[in-house]
């Protein structure tokens, strides 16, 4: 009740609008979540049985060089102090320098995250555009050949190792048929031709109006995007089918049919509308999964994304990069959660 005020101990509280309270609560939750995430990752990095100094100076450094690097990294301070210094730096926008690339972590992430964003977005679009109709049709025509195909697609998607499918895709569509370009984001002849505005190559090429670069970038992204899209499709179509079956067995659907509504209206205007809220969560989860970066896909297709960045950094004990990447991934998850909450409120009056 945002308009009411209360008195306690004779003091009068200022009225706080509910939207403000919710916004502040959301911000506090996000801040605590991210801080917790950072804390856990930071501590894991520090207690791992790996010497972070060696990661910086290499195995052939002298003891004097080791000691110098030890102090420079602040490792002589208590863990909590180290964490406090790190968080203060992060709040000032300084994620530190990557010991693996020698560049600022923020600069590295600004380069690798758009690559993942572009790939994950296209992959999710493919998964949604194909997966949702397939799931709906499989539910409507339950037990038919369409349903069998849907199951088969889902089964393959769940059971086939992604690196194997990736290799096969590369071999067939790039190696043998030559329909798509090879690994990487752009051919060597097109690099640097369009200004880097967003880091999203397709978008940058469109903004620059350079359709040759756009075609080349599309030719590079289409295969890994289809691969990721296929895995999303398998998940989304199975979930859609399951949600739809539940709705199609509901009494209101029978009533709608008895009232003489067309099958199209029954399926799409009634049943599908009611699963849209659950679908939002499923799609958001699928999208978040891809945004985490698909390490194996990125390695097979030499795609310089955040998944392989974090993994390689972790294996090299480059904790600044791991922490920076973790913040980004954590923020993405939180943002997608908030976004799906907002969509819930929009689609479902009860959530308001």
């Amino acid at each position, binding site marked *: 009740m945002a308009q009411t005020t209360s008195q306690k101990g004779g003091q009068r509280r200022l009225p706080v609008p509910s939207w403000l309270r919710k916004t502040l609560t959301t911000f506090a939750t996000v801040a605590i979540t991210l801080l917790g995430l950072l804390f856990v990752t930071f501590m894991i990095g520090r207690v791992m049985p790996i010497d972070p100094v*060696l990661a910086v100076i290499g195995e052939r450094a002298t003891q004097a*060089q080791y000691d110098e690097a030890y102090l420079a990294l602040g490792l002589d301070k208590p863990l909590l102090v180290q964490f406090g210094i790190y968080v203060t730096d992060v709040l000032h926008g300084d994620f530190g320098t990557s010991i693996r690339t020698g560049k600022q972590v923020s600069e590295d992430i600004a380069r690798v995250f758009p690559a993942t964003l572009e790939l994950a977005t296209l992959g999710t679009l493919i998964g949604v555009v194909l997966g949702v109709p397939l799931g709906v049709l499989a539910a409507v025509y339950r037990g038919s050949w369409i349903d069998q195909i849907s199951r088969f697609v889902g089964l393959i998607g769940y059971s086939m190792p992604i690196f194997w499918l990736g290799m096969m895709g590369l071999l067939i569509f790039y190696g043998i048929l030559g329909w798509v370009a090879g690994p990487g984001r752009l051919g060597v002849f097109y*690099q640097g031709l369009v200004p880097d505005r967003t880091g999203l190559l397709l978008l940058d090429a469109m903004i620059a109006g350079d359709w040759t670069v756009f075609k080349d970038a599309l030719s590079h992204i289409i295969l890994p995007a289809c691969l990721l899209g296929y895995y999303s499709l398998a998940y989304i179509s199975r979930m859609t089918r399951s949600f739809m079956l539940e709705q199609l067995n509901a009494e209101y659907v029978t009533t709608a049919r008895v009232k003489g509504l067309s099958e199209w209206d029954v399926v799409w205007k009634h049943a599908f509308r009611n699963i849209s809220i659950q679908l939002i969560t499923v799609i958001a989860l699928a999208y978040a999964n891809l945004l985490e970066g698909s390490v*194996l896909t990125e390695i097979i297709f030499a795609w310089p994304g955040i998944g392989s960045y974090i993994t390689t950094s972790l294996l090299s004990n480059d904790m600044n990069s791991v922490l920076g990447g973790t913040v980004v991934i954590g923020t993405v998850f939180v943002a997608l959660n908030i976004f799906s909450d907002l969509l819930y409120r929009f689609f479902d009056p009860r959530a308001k």
Partner: protein
Amino acid sequence: MKTFTNFGKAALVATLLGSVALPAFAETPPNMLVIANRIDDIKTFDPAESFEFAGADVSRNVYEKLVNFDPLDLDAGYAPQLAASWDVSEDGKTITFTMADGHVFASGNPVTAKDAEFSLRRAVLLNKTPSFILTQFGFTADNVEDTIKATDDKTLVITLDKQYALSFVLNCLTATIGGIVDSETVMANETDGDMGNAWLRTNTAGSGPYKVLDWKPNESVMMDLNPNYGGDEPAMKRVIVQHIQESATQRLQLERGDIDIARNLSPEDVAGLEGNADVKVVDELRGRLMYWSANQKVEALTDPKVLEAMKYAVDYKGMADSFLKGQYTVQQAFLPLTFLGALEDKPFAFDIEKAKSLMAESGYPDGFDLKISVREAQERIDIAQSLQNTWGQIGINVELIVGTGAQTLDRYRAREHDIYVGAWGPDYPDPNTNAGTFAYNPDNSDEAGATGLLAWRNAWGIPEMSEETLAAVVENDTEKRKEMYLALQKEFQQVSPFGVMFQQIEQNAMASSVENFVAGGATTAVSYWVITK
């Protein structure tokens, strides 16, 4: 989460299915070289700091040195480059270099002795990891102004703390850290007194054939011609190195004609290229050695008979002919073949019966338990498993401890391992680079903390052998020096707790039109400027 080991299987599957002939439809332009390589180890281009393989590849093509190797005649050893000639004082401690004419930095500034003075002093003052290559001659932050001095634009005088073999000094100057940078350009980009270190990490300022145009970590390095390069104009005007992790992917790109050279093909993929007339594979011996070592803090491993038995119970040929085929050759001395004084003797062959009888004569006739510490690289795990099997046959029960490179190395440096299976590559192209770590450990105490020495890591105290190693460093008669290293290696083979097993062969696959590709042998890095196609 699937593990990286799945990639091996994936590569194999792709290789098997990829045995069909692929239609080549693309070709790179005739003046552009496109290479697929694993370049995720590049941290910096600064020659005073760079110490990684892929970084050395870039550095060799960007920076010239006082003396350098001719890529088309590596066996000839060092030759004049920025220094036209040099004189050594009577006491052998002062070397005076006379600079050559006609060398110009990419910026247009001429290369002078002042630049050489700046570069070498800078390497000492910055005190980065590879600085030991120079500081081992007695250069310190306090004395560089006197010991490394340009008396004029044409003359550089360096003064060593004592007499060393001239070949040792000059060989060290061919290492990456000997790269001469453009002092004016570098200092114009100095921040907070870092002598341009931050700027040189991502930029280059050399007089070599190429300059770095663009570097995207883990993605690509693009190099263009240095327009002021003083030598013959290279045929390749642009060189692009793409980071491609997967062997199968590199092979596909090569067969499609999208790249000219694939540098990390697995034995399966190399075998799969057989019969493809458009592609050839060039083998080259590199400097990396694969070895096992026994920690002398473990009592059972101090027994000479046990160590000898273990050396006989290694299936050298079996490994080299199976999972290491084409990638490694058997080498049992601590100097890689092609190095000055490298010993070719291979006294140990797989002989289980002999190993068993040696064990019976040892203080451990019933065997004992042992842990092998090995990093999670497939070839090393394969080697460790082979050792587990063959040592098991002589009563040594082996447990494998597999960890990340950093974990395994931590244990090794802390002298907490039993057996370590690892690799070692030379830091500079002089025999002392390996002798000084395998056969040098004058103070074996824990307090000495000589973590850089392999002998110390294995708690192998060798005051006498250390003296022999030091004596070889100062011997100026090259032939005599060679004999000293041969003798040192023979003794080492017999008595050391090290089992050197293999030397790396690098197999580079390339379009059949590519000529003069030299990966650098055991002594240096790749040279793009001589390549034609």
